[in-house]
Every structure is written in structure tokens, then in C-alpha cells.
């Protein structure tokens, strides 16, 4: 049987990158996302990974991280950091040529900016569904809302992004085609 530290390390290595990604999309900055992710895992470690029923620790840590993110947003401290380090967030998985990197970077910037236009609860629900592949029930547990609210938030987020991205990406396509 693995020790508790070993289990925690496995859990950390598994979920730290995805938690960072979630927070980065929520807040728009990498450094603050990593700070909050680390603090969230610190709290989990102190609480004890084994104290949670099977599968619950993951929901708990996303809930804690999201609450930290809410605190940051409400304090307004991220206002100065939002999108200042957007370029740092765009590290592609594989090496691309400069043109591809630029295009990918611009697309991601557009996505982040468009995400920012969503209300926080819609943004969180959509990211948990699309990026973390959580079910509606799991999202409701993480966000502390009902499943009906999750359904509505996700649908509204999709509709809003669909319209806004169509406009901005249409302009992007026109620009890159020149």
C-alpha cells in the first residue's frame, strides 16, 4: 500500500496541470493561477487526501480553487495582471514555426478575452464541463449549485461564446487571409 505522501504526489501530478489550466482560463493569468493552485493543494494536503471518500478529493480541490479565484476577482487584484501575461500562457505542446505560433497565440488570446466576457459562474461551469469533463452532477457539487442551474449556465455560456467568437473569429480569418 502506498504511503499517504506517495498517494498525494500521484494525485498532485495528475491534477495540478489541469487545475492550473482551469484557473488560468478563469483568471487570465498564469502566475496567479499557479499560486492559487499551489495554495489549494496545500490545503488539501493539510486536510489529508485519505480523509475524503473515493473521488471526492478532486471535487473538493476544484471547489477550493474556484473560491480562491473568486476572492482574487472580487479583490480586484487580478485586474492589473489580467491579460498582462497572456502571452506566457500560450506555450504550445509541440514546437511550431513562428507563423503557427503567432496564429495559435492570437486564437487563444481571442478565446481568453471572450471567456472573460462571461459571468464568472457561467465561465466556471463551462470550463469544468469542457476541459475537465465533469458531469452536471459533479459540476453542481463543485460550484455548490443545483443541476438545473448548471444546465442553464452551460447553455447560456455556449450561446454567448458562439455568437461572440463567430464575430471575432470572422474578423480574425479575414485578417489572416490578407
Amino acid at each position: 500500500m502506498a504511503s499517504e505522501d506517495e498517494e498525494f504526489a500521484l494525485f498532485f501530478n495528475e491534477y495540478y496541470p489541469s487545475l492550473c489550466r482551469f484557473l488560468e482560463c478563469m483568471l487570465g493569468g498564469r502566475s496567479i493561477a499557479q499560486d492559487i493552485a499551489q495554495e489549494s493543494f496545500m490545503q488539501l494536503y493539510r486536510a489529508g487526501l485519505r480523509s475524503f471518500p473515493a473521488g471526492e478529493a478532486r471535487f473538493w480541490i476544484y471547489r477550493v480553487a474556484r473560491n480562491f479565484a473568486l476572492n482574487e476577482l472580487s479583490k480586484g487584484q487580478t485586474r492589473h495582471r489580467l491579460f498582462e501575461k497572456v502571452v506566457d500562457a500560450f506555450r504550445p505542446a509541440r514546437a511550431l514555426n513562428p507563423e503557427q505560433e503567432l496564429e495559435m497565440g492570437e486564437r487563444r488570446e481571442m478565446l481568453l478575452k471572450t471567456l472573460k466576457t462571461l459571468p464568472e459562474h457561467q465561465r466556471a461551469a463551462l470550463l469544468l464541463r469542457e476541459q475537465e469533463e465533469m458531469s452536471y452532477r459533479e459540476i453542481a457539487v463543485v460550484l455548490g449549485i443545483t443541476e438545473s442551474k448548471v444546465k442553464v449556465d452551460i447553455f447560456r455560456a455556449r450561446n454567448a461564446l458562439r455568437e461572440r467568437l463567430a464575430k471575432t473569429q470572422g474578423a480574425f480569418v479575414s485578417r489572416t487571409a490578407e
Partner: protein
Amino acid sequence: MSCHWTTKVSLLIDEELSREEAAATAHHLKACAACQQVREDFLRLRRQLTSYTIEPNPAAQQHALRKILASDAAAHAGETRRSESTAVNSAIGLRGQLARMFRAWQHAPAMMASVALIIVGIIALLAYVSLRHKTTTDKRAESVAFVPQKDIGRSGAKDGGSDAARVQPSPSLPLPDKSVTPSAETGSRAVVKVKDKTGGRERVLSVVADRNARPREMRATQAGRETIARVIEKGPAQGNASTQVNVARGVEPASVARDSSADDVSRFERYASSAAQFQTTRHVEQAQLLLRSFRNARLADEGPASDIAYEKERSRRLLYRNIVLRREAASNGNLPVEKLLSSLEPILIDIANLPEKPLDDDIRSIKERMQRKNIVAMLQVNLAPAARFN
């Protein structure tokens, strides 16, 4: 363009509709161009969001981990905890209350004494319950009727009570060949060696059946590779009378006579069932973590290759538990769980069998297999409903 079906389209792509609603929505999609466009747009948005990947610096990630692990030592050195943030307080709930209770415990000897008394009482209660159940299962096992089996290797013993004479395989095990070698039998224990040939591989199973069974090693020799798996045989207390007890006694029970404590048996079976479900949930969670870690392992052509020794070791440990739980599910008729664990088992075997320095092709082939079977998603999907049983 708008259609009142667009909300259903959103639920459809998330697989959150019932079967009837999904069928009705799919039927509507065939005829509605507007909804088809909506669906395409939603799926395109999904691709954009999922393609947003980041790769944190591995060195920085490990540094963060070490910092967290080191913080525990500082806390144990007597450093007082700083107050929790409201975000954590709202999430910890009961856990926070217990932590505060334990802090108060340090300053209240009377509370210490009462807590110690409570703990002693709980231990005594658990001991009583386990003794009572042991008595109940002993009675149940003795009431099993024996029916001799045909065409199974015999050692010459003719009476139906000879434990070592015959072997009745569990539903999930292939029929053994006829080379059954009886071994020593003492009391309620029977050691049986069975040669098992499945898929062209020959394995020698050394099975010890005992009500308080201990795991024994099963060495599997395959061409060029060795697989070590453990088979644990449980007594009838775990509800596996049709398998493990028969392995011990080599018979098929024609009927199970119920003694006067049938209610106790049913209560214990429910307890055993919920305990098995909890173990399965925990196992699926750990398997999912392992497979995700293995899936993220870097190959040599992608940069510094990841060391997968930990995944190999972990896979070995999970493999023996997977075998146990799969058989448990099979004997309980839990087909979905059995199917899930059957899909998982070959992956665990492959990872556990990797050499010390595996080739990229070996790792890649396992990853591709995982992707084809979509095993990680299967585990995640099954984890949610399984967790409801806890």
C-alpha cells in the same frame, strides 16, 4: 435563427438526456438545419476549449510539490496553523470542525479521557460484530450441500467431502485441465494446485482456500515474460460461496441451507456488498489516476523520457486487487463492474510487465490501446455512479 430545441442540443452533446429524450432530439436534428448549425458551433467551441493546453514547467511543478510536502514537517514541529481562509472554511465543513475539536483536545484533559473511552467502546463493538459474523458464516458454510462433479481432475478420493479431490472453477476462471494435484488439507483449508491453460498460456495456480484466507502468489510463466499476480480466496463470508468455497471443497453447491440466523446472514451480505462497492470505487479511482499518469508519461522522442517505475509498481498492486474485485463482481452478478474491470485488467498487466527500461514503442502501444478502449473515460464515467453507493 432560434429553435426551442437548442437547449436539448446542448444537453445532447453532454449526454445528459434520457434515452427517450436523446432519441427525440436526434430525430429533430435530422430535420432542423438551425439546430444542426447550433450543434456544430457547440462542438467547435468544445474543440477550442479542449485544445487550450498548457505545460507547466515540470521542475517548477515538482518544486511546488516538495514545498507542500515539506510544509507538513514544519506544521508538526509545533508551528501554529494560520487561520484558514473563508474559501477553505466553506469547503472543509465537518473536517474543519474535527480539526478544531482536536486543537481544543490538547487543552482539555477531561475531553481526552472521554474521547479515549469512546474509542475503546467502538473497538469493542467492532470486535463483537466481527465475532458474531464469523459465527454466522461458520454455520452457513457447514450447511452447503455437496454435489459431486464430473470430468474434473480427481486424485482418487471418492467421497464428496474431499476438499482436494475436485476443483470447481469460478465463473470468471477458465476450466482447468485435468492435472489437479491435491495437496495437504488441514481442517477448513485445502491447498489445490491447478494447471490452467488459457489462450495458449499455461499457469500453475496454487490456491489456498480458507475462511481466513491469505493471498498466495500465482506465478505465470509466459514466453519471454513473467507475470506475478496474486489470487486471494475468500471464504463464504464475502458472499462467494459459489466460487471460493467450492474451490476449497471442490464441489458445486446444490443448495444452501439456511440456518436460523438468516436475517443475520442477509444483513452481513448487505454489509459485504456495500463494502465491496466501496472497495471497487476506491480501486477505480486509483486506477484512473494511474492510467492518467501513464498516459502523460513522456517518450524519449518528446524530450527527457519519464521514469515509469512507479507506474509499474502501482500497476502490479492494482492488478491483484482488480482480479479480486472482478471475481467478486462476477459472483455477485454485477455485470457492468465485471466488464469494466475486465477491460482494465489487460492494461494493468501490460504496464506491470514492462521491462525496467521500456522502449518507446512498448509504451506507445499501451497508450494507443488505452485510447482505443477509451479506458480512462470509462473509469471516470463509472466512478460517478459507483460513488453513489458509498
